[in-house]
């Protein structure tokens, strides 16, 4: 399965809706997209992974790399996800301690972190 990406701007935030599978084969596409956004001056990212079916360790690595990149610019990377299957991966890997995770894009937009 492929990875779909659609990006929009909401005030000072950039919302990236991701769909499909983020795995070793598709993760480079997401990585390049995040790098492009940060190079283009977007430092406050909301990555909406509600439409993601599968996330492997390479995909998690890309999100972690994205977080490091925006932090270099005092930016932020928020995640939107309610799927238990995906949230469990974040819990097991301890990433719930690293990423703020919200149930909806609106909640992420309303949050001040």
């Amino acid at each position: 399965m492929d990875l779909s990406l659609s990006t929009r701007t909401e005030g000072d935030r950039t919302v990236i809706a991701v769909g499909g599978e983020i795995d070793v084969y598709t993760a480079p596409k997401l990585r390049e997209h995040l790098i492009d956004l940060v190079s283009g001056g977007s430092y406050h990212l909301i990555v909406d992974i509600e439409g993601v079916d599968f996330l492997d360790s390479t995909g998690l690595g890309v999100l972690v790399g994205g977080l490091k990149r925006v932090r270099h610019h005092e930016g932020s990377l928020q995640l939107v996800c309610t799927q238990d299957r995906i949230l469990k991966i974040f819990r097991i890997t301890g990433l719930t301690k690293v990423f703020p995770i919200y149930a909806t894009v609106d909640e992420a937009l309303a949050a001040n972190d």
Partner: protein
Amino acid sequence: MSDRTLVLIEDDAGDALLVSEMLFDVDPDLHVTQFATLQSAIDSWPIEAECVLLDLGLPDAFGLSALEKLQAHVPDAPVVVLTGRLDDASGPAALAAGAQDFLVKGQVDAPGLERALRYAVERGRATTYQRELIAAEVRAEENSRLQRGLLPSPLIQTDELRFAPFYRPGRERALLGGDFYDVVQTDTGVHLLIGDVSGHSLDEAALGVALRIAWRSLVLAGLSQPDVLLGVEKVLLAERGDDERYASVATVSLDPDFSTARVALCGHPAPLLIKADSVVELVAEPTPALAIAPGISPQLTTVHLAGDWGLLLFTDGLIEGSVSPGAVDRLGATALARHVEALIGRSIPRHSLASNLLAEAERRHGGPLPDDVAVLTVGTCGWWG
């Protein structure tokens, strides 16, 4: 046959025309690109040529030196040489030097020319396959060197515990990824490690070897379980070479009489504890995987192990397969625990527990699993049976 190109390096316009006409007669689709000097041909490379027809009497290169110079620049193209005279020894010499064939000007007809070129192309392909085969063998050797580094012999003295390691690379590769495990005994007990470097290439495999050896060294040096992991994390941060790579790790330390286990989970699935016919996850407070949020000391969870028991340490490759072919839902640790219970119920030998679990995961997934799988099965002699 179409869209094929032959490079003709020939300074004599008459000979060039003759060869082109002959080729047109037998194969009108063959496109001939002609150069009058060797240098102009080399300067024009890369050309998608099936074959090179090289005159050994060129103004800028003569005899075998023309062939050698061409091969130095274009090692992959099959070459057929053209010589001027029948008694010229340069034809056979060119064969010895790596040309696929030689033709004597004025002695060859159109079908003969076409056949010589066709054979040359086929032999050239065979040579390419041969080269690829050698490259694959070299990769396999590299792999086996890494495998020795990733999959060590347990460093233990006790005969009260039994071990069975298992490793299977993910689909589409004979390559190892970055899964690793280790077992070390010290005077404070027996220490178990399983881990997974994110990503799936030789780089990760090499990093996995480095982390395993770092862990082994720090355990042998007598550091506490949390401090060992902090040390391994420092090694990872120093060696990883990019910002994304991290490693999930689970360690279990058994006290000297194997009655308690202390579990640390750094972003890694919980090991399974098997006692009699029940299987439970050794859930511990998760710390982020190593190098994600550096410097967090992992919390230990203590588990009492009375009597006979088995432990199954595994990497997430084993539980990331689909629950059924094409399904979005993944197997997960809970279903894995049920599989283990079923296998224990059928008295499957302990040393083949892991391979049976993989077979079941692959059956449900509907084919080879995408990720590497490493499993370390450990148990008391009584449990092992």
